[in-house]
């Protein structure tokens, strides 16, 4: 059978039925859905570990878990949220929306697309095994290193560290395959009449993200492979006694780890660049400067990694460079925030849930960015470093900057994907509970850090009690609010008011010309652009 007739049949008979539709899928919409479901499951797993962490920190003393399990949860929470929830969710949005936005029939490499998703469940299994293996007889010690996996501690850990290293390898392969696919799609599959500099902003953010991933993920893979060799094959890459250097791992890790922050952030910036113009009913302010700012962030972001390691004893020259480089990032990021505010300015705004999230992101991400400038200042970082202040800071950038952006995207495009409008009233309740819970959780942690509470401790002195209580109460509100998200999403999938193709009054772009939901195969002939 030729490809043409297969496509023809699919058009008439719809997608294949049963498990084959999902396991063997080469359809960007189905794979996008798989990514999103996977991310949602991981969000709840990572969230559950965060609930236990905050539950333990609710009061001084050791109540719920033992110290190693606590550290294991801290490690697990970070890895699951970053690699399991945020990155796959962003990849899910990319899979769904990029072909629709650029008028392509599908992703450029559909079979690789299938592979890059189906590696993920295997990776997640390894990741979860790394958490549970120590509970079995002979399973060795728990991973008590935090997600940074710094040696020598990570060399002492039992076999669960090996599971984790392989999980990271698999996740890395999956990310690189997905990135290649996105780059190839964006560079080759744009409909005639969409030059690179007129491409929708979400596509731009993903193009940059994909390049970042390809540049930095192999460095992490190399780093953890060296760790594996140190653990089992007698090398001494990170062992000073054998001529190695424990700090080398930190450099490798953060060479990946800092750009990773932008990998998490940029897709959400892309979502905002669509949501804000839609609900302000006017075009994105400063498209070219937005693209420029993003390229600048990606470039500078690659060369400031050691600001995560100010305390390792670098020379004055080195810390000066990393400090000034880091502060300079505020210029492109400030420009992005400015462009968002200028898009709202003199618009005709309405406040549906995606827009509420967008406004919250602009405000809270600005706050997180500003505490980031404080952290960049080396002498002051002598105080902030590895304290709860840092925990508060990076949750203020990653939660609004990445997660809320994904929520905005999900609510924005959910009617397009399902053909049903979501329950606006419930969604607004979700927004308020979520955002208030978030601020209640993380705002007090700034004070804890300044007062001297280190991060990653299971037990603390009574002077830190009050703010920890507030933070834990907030965390429970924040955590459980996501059940409402789950309910809204399921409810929308099952039914609801029929969505028009346009969905939102102010929405512009090719994706809104298709029906809601779009046909299984869309843009089989390239759209005509006026």
């Amino acid at each position: 059978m030729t490809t043409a007739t297969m496509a023809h049949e699919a058009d008439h008979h719809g997608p294949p039925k049963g498990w084959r539709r999902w396991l063997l899928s080469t359809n960007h919409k189905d794979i996008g859905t798989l990514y999103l479901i996977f991310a949602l499951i991981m969000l709840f797993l990572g969230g559950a570990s965060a609930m236990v962490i905050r539950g333990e920190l609710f009061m001084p003393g050791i109540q719920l878990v033992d110290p190693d399990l606590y550290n294991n949860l801290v490690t697990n929470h970070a890895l699951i949220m970053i690699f399991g929830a945020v990155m796959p969710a962003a990849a899910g949005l990319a899979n769904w929306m990029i072909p629709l936005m650029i008028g392509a029939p599908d992703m450029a490499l559909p079979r690789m697309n299938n592979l890059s998703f189906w590696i993920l469940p295997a990776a997640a299994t390894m990741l979860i095994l790394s958490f549970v293996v120590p509970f079995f007889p002979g399973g060795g010690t728990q991973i008590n290193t935090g997600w940074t996996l710094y040696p020598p501690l990570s060399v002492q850990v039992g076999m669960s560290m090996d599971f984790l290293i392989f999980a990271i390898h698999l996740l890395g392969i999956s990310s690189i395959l997905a990135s290649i696919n996105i780059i190839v799609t964006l560079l080759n599959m744009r409909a005639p009449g969409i030059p690179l500099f007129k491409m929708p902003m979400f596509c731009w953010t993903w193009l940059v993200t994909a390049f970042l991933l390809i540049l930095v993920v192999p460095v992490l893979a190399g780093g953890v492979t060296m760790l594996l060799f140190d653990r089992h094959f007698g090398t001494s890459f990170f062992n000073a006694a054998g001529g190695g250097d424990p700090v080398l791992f930190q450099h490798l890790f953060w060479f990946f780890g800092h750009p990773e922050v932008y990998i998490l952030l940029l897709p959400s910036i892309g979502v905002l660049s669509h949501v804000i113009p839609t609900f302000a009913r006017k075009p994105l302010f400063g498209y070219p400067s937005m693209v420029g700012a993003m390229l600048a962030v990606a470039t500078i972001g690659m060369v400031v990694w050691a600001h995560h390691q100010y305390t390792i004893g670098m020379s004055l020259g080195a810390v000066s460079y990393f400090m000034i480089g880091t502060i300079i990032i505020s210029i492109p990021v400030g420009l992005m925030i400015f462009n968002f505010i200028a898009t709202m300015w003199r618009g005709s705004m309405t406040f549906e849930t995606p827009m509420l999230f967008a406004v919250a992101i602009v405000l809270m991400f600005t706050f997180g960015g500003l505490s980031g400038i404080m952290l960049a200042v080396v002498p002051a970082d002598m105080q902030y470093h590895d304290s709860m202040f840092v925990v508060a800071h990076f949750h203020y950038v990653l939660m609004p900057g990445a997660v809320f952006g994904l929520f905005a995207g999900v609510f924005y495009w959910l009617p397009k994907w399902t053909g049903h409008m979501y329950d606006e009233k419930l969604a607004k309740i979700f927004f308020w509970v979520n955002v208030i819970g978030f601020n209640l959780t993380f705002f007090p942690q700034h004070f804890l850090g300044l007062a001297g509470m280190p991060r990653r401790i299971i037990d603390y002195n009574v002077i830190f009690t009050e703010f920890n209580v507030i933070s834990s109460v907030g965390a429970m509100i924040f955590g459980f609010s996501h059940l409402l998200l789950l309910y809204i999403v399921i409810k929308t999938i099952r039914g609801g008011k029929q969505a028009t193709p346009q969905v939102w009054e102010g929405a512009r772009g090719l994706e809104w010309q298709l029906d809601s939901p779009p046909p299984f195969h869309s843009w089989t002939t390239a759209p005509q652009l006026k």
Partner: protein
Amino acid sequence: MSVIAKPVVGLITWLLLLTAASVRAEYGLNFPEPAATSARQIYDIHMMTMQIATFLLVLVFAFVIYSLYFHRKSRGFEADQNFHKSWFGNWSWVIVPALVLAVDLTIASNAQRVLEAVWEVPEEEDLMDVKVVGHQWWWEFDYLDHGIKVESRHVGKEKAGDLYLREVDNRLVLPVGKKIRFLHTSADVLHAFWVPELAVKKDAIPGYVTETWVELDREGVFRGQCAELCGTWHSRMPIVVEAVSQQRFDDWLIEQNTLKVAAATEAASDKTWSTEELMEKGRGLYNSKCAACHQVTGDGLPPAFPALKGSAVATGPVAAHLEIVINGKPGTAMQPWNSLNNLEIAAIVTYERNAWGNDAGDTVQPADVQAAR
């Protein structure tokens, strides 16, 4: 509108409160009052960047809130479709970065000035060196100029009371008004030395010696904690600095020296110790040095820290037991304890072989330890 404004106003109020001098140290909202000249400079740069950040935050909030209120469809505001084509739209990509750059330069230039003042240890003859070694999970302070070593461990809840996790058995005693250089390193994994009042934080890295310095300018007791995740009992590594006058510091040195000489004399005597004496000494030493991992009950915390109660090592041949205590077990958290003197090792090993129902029944004498070294 009010639904948006309320949390926003609350947030701003909180931030403004933070910058107000009246709510400083007392409520634990900000850094504790600095106790060193360098820490004061660091405190000031912290306040400066925070004030700039707060000002910018208020500015952004003001513009957004204004826009949210006036530029909404429900007020009948028509979108200005040409806003991005105005002169401002055309030049904002230059204006905004220029303004941000000005802010950045203000912060960076001040920060650089402070950095240069505090970062490098002053090149002077008259520095007092203290080597700070991180261990799982205690600190060792080695007064290199005075030949005194202090082992500092957290104390239990019963003894520490409200200071639990912020109190130690032996404090880091330092004189006021003298430049002190800390040399940081670690015996096992990463740790980080952090005392907020001193504004010093430096990682302890095995194989590295890094340095920081401080000149204390007021007396007092300053409490900090290990700031780099170092395994199971990361939360139990407090650091307590006691800043005293030079006079009291000298007295303290004499006192420490006397104790040291007495201990050395006792250990060097060729007396044969009775089981009771060794058990008594051994219990104290075990509970302070070994119990963090192997527990007071001898049950350990498997799988990382094996039980000694009924273990093959503690009930088997003495030679193997001494070997592991003196040389440690590579690849695990069990470090070599060869820095202890013969009497101490003898007491610990005797205690481990006869406590918690272990019935090796033998007594290890300092001479046996000497032979095993």
